[in-house]
């Protein structure tokens, strides 16, 4: 009898641990909205999906590289990550002394983030999906016209070293998602669909010699400076780049 009881306890514990391992997700109800960079029809329709509540943490990423050795700092190839990949870590499996296990994993390339998500049966969010969830504040799904929302984001851009903060330290938005603003920038699946040329002076003119059909892409909401910054960052990234304040989360 005793042994059966113990077994039950063990099974319950295992189940609990297993459930905890899979990072929590919330479902996002789809809808239609106009992103900063509209396309022909200007409206984008998002279908229902699930999103990670928090960005992927150092602890999550540590577990990932201990299993997938090709993403260890010493093993990663230069095709997939630049030299600053996980550069703040002490070794392949030890994070930096001033880093928290509960802080967002940063200094990871798009290739690594992409593989992380697919190893969990998930994927990176598209820009449109990410922006759709990120335009919410605590109470409204679309807070882009609210002054305090924009001010909050812009004040974050001025705050130094927020990447050291632990996940969940910013606000929970309308969709019950944390940390979209205020912690780190995040990779998106199709970050390379932002067509601005490298030279900032050229961004005013769409360079039709470099980009086929680039005239179709123009900012629809120039007031939304915060979003403008995000698109600018995405436009300047290459997939193997890694940055101290660039992390990611997955969707399904």
């Amino acid at each position: 009898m005793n042994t059966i009881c113990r077994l039950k306890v063990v099974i319950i514990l295992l189940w609990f641990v297993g459930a905890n391992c899979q990072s929590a997700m919330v479902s996002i109800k789809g809808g239609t909205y106009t992103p900063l960079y509209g396309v022909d029809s200007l409206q984008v329709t998002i279908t229902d999906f699930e999103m990670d509540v928090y960005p992927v943490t150092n602890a999550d990423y540590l577990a990932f590289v201990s299993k997938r050795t090709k993403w260890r700092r010493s093993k990663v190839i230069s095709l997939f990550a630049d030299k600053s990949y996980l550069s703040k870590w002490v070794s392949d499996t030890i994070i930096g002394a001033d880093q928290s296990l509960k802080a967002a994993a940063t200094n990871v390339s798009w290739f690594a983030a992409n593989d992380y998500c697919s190893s969990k049966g998930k994927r990176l969010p598209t820009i449109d999906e990410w922006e759709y969830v990120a335009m919410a504040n605590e109470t409204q799904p679309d807070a882009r016209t609210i002054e305090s929302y924009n001010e909050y984001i812009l004040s974050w851009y001025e705050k130094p070293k927020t990447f050291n903060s632990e996940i969940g330290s910013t606000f929970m938005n309308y969709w019950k998602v944390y940390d979209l603003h205020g912690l780190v920038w995040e990779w998106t699946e199709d970050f390379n669909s932002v067509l601005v040329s490298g030279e900032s002076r050229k961004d005013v003119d769409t360079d039709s010699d470099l980009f086929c059909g680039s005239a179709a892409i123009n900012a629809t909401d120039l007031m939304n400076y915060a979003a403008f910054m995000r698109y600018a960052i995405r436009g300047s990234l290459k997939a193997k780049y890694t940055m101290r304040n660039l992390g990611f989360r997955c969707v399904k």
Partner: protein
Amino acid sequence: MKRIYIVLAIITSIMLGSCTTNTNKDQTYQCPMKCEGEKTFAKQGSCIICNMALKPIKDNTKTLASADDISDSSIFNLTTKWNTEEGNTIELKELKGKTLVMVMIYTTCKAACPRLVADMRNIEKKLPKENLKNTQFVLISIDPETDTPEKLKAFAIENYMDGEQWTFLQGSVSGVREFANVLAVKYKEISPLDFSHSNIISVFSKEGELVHQQEGLGVNNNETIKKIIETFK
């Protein structure tokens, strides 16, 4: 309890043992005189007809593995699968050994792609003949849902690019996204059948390392030609 350990130990040793015998099996032997044609044997021994000792045959896969020494930055590290316009399924490393000139296009494109394709043909025209046979021109579709191998083949014929030096590739949506990221090509679907994309022609060495990128349309291609020729030195 002890019994379980013993059983476990036996099972693992059997599994390990079977592994080693398996690897030996991969080696095949053949009569050096080929008395029985191409017949191969699984074990060492002598030929029944001429009595000579059987020789181990070099395994094709093994020679490939030894030639697999590719550098960190080589695109042959990518393991995604691609369909060619001829209906074959390949990995990029099967293109190894030739200088690669690559560009991303889509066949329903009306604006830049015809000019990009023309740029590719101009590069081909300007290359010295002896270099041409060691160069492969690869056009990768950014619209894999529309551009099936059949469509790509038709496009190749229509544009006089059906020769052996031309290869057209259809990938998966994620494979194309990954490859575009390797080339630093940006693209966005504007509407079905219409994409914005950066106009970049990339040159890769025989080992799959990026040596040059030509950006823009109708630009002077002397630099690109020079870099291609340098890959043969």
